[in-house]
């Protein structure tokens, strides 16, 4: 899945090759994405801690390039019902970010934010949807902020859109919308610890291939 790219040198001049699919990312690229995930998760933990008014710790995120089918397995199987918050990336980088949370996480957030006791995820009120959507917005901003800081690229996100449904049905959306040639997505998994809760949050990043090349170039990584 991971292939090394050889950059030929010719008369002292470098011919920088660019990648045309996510499968061509090598270990160095994955490390860069990990670092982005790391800083993003740090920002996210801070935001989450302020939002929930509790101490939030985090573990090192794992970054994987996954097939949609495998990503669904990582998230409890394709039929597992989760909440997805999706935002389009605009500006210097175009792509899609999707933040995926389990129903339990959503429930505990709603309890601490709105004080609601009983939450049923199949019938979320406008108020509850809005609160979850804001949580997603903050988390997505934490990651785009980290990319922006590292690369000096200008990034904008659209107003987030929310869906409660089977994870398999949500996962295919970013890959299809970006017209990626393969079924691969960049999958960043973070574990947050808050009190007795171990919260697993998953961020999916699907940049257009042009944007990914631009990002790597700005970060000084030769492709």
């Amino acid at each position: 899945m991971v292939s090394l790219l050889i950059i030929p040198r010719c008369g002292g001049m470098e011919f920088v090759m660019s990648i045309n699919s996510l499968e061509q990312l090598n270990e160095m690229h994955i490390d860069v994405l990990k670092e982005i995930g790391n800083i993003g998760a740090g920002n996210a933990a801070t935001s989450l801690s302020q939002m929930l008014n509790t101490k939030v710790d985090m573990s090192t995120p794992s970054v994987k390039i996954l097939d949609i089918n495998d990503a669904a397995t990582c998230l409890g199987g394709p039929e597992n019902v989760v909440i997805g918050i999706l935002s389009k990336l605009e500006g210097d980088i175009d792509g899609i970010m999707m933040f995926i949370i389990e129903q339990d996480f959503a429930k505990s957030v709603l309890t601490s934010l709105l004080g609601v006791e009983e939450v049923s995820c199949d019938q979320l009120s406008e108020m509850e949807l809005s609160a979850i959507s804001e949580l997603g917005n903050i988390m997505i901003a934490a990651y785009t902020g980290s990319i922006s800081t590292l690369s000096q690229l200008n990034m904008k996100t659209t107003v987030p859109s929310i869906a409660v449904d089977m994870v398999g049905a949500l996962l295919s959306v970013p890959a299809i919308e970006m017209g990626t040639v393969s079924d691969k997505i960049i999958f960043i998994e973070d574990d947050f610890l808050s009190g007795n809760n171990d919260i697993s949050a998953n961020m999916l990043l699907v940049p257009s291939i042009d944007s990914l090349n631009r990002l790597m170039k700005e970060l000084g990584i030769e492709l």
Partner: protein
Amino acid sequence: MNNTITIGISDMKIAKNSETLVTYALGSCVGICLYDSIMKIGGLGHIMLPIFPPNNPKESKLRFADTCIPEMITQMERMGCNRRRLIAKIAGGAKMFNVAGDSSFGNIGKRNVEAVKDTLKKYQIGIYAEDTGLNYGRTVYFYPLDGKMVVKSFAKGIKTY
């Protein structure tokens, strides 16, 4: 009901008699069931995009509506089916997210359904049941024994076609 065959994304399989075909969580993708009631043979395809890109011949044929359906017909004929007898049942093609200020976002589901219908029409296969569009994910079960398609969703429960 002992043998269940799972179809992943951009995949297609054929089964017969008491075998069960299933594809999980279709979002904007479309599940296409083709059925020959005499042979009790059914095929289920899970397509992701409408049209095969001619400039990218290495792509999987099963990923696209216009190439997956003929491939499924060919394989079913190889097992003894007659294409004149084939009927179709389709499900999926939802719009999972509504992005504010971008009305074209998520229209791929609709385009997938259109491409499936166009392709079926081209091969003169009638559509006997359809559960497409709207905004929720669907799991599709297909039973070659009686040709029934069962659509399961989080939002709307279970429906049999």
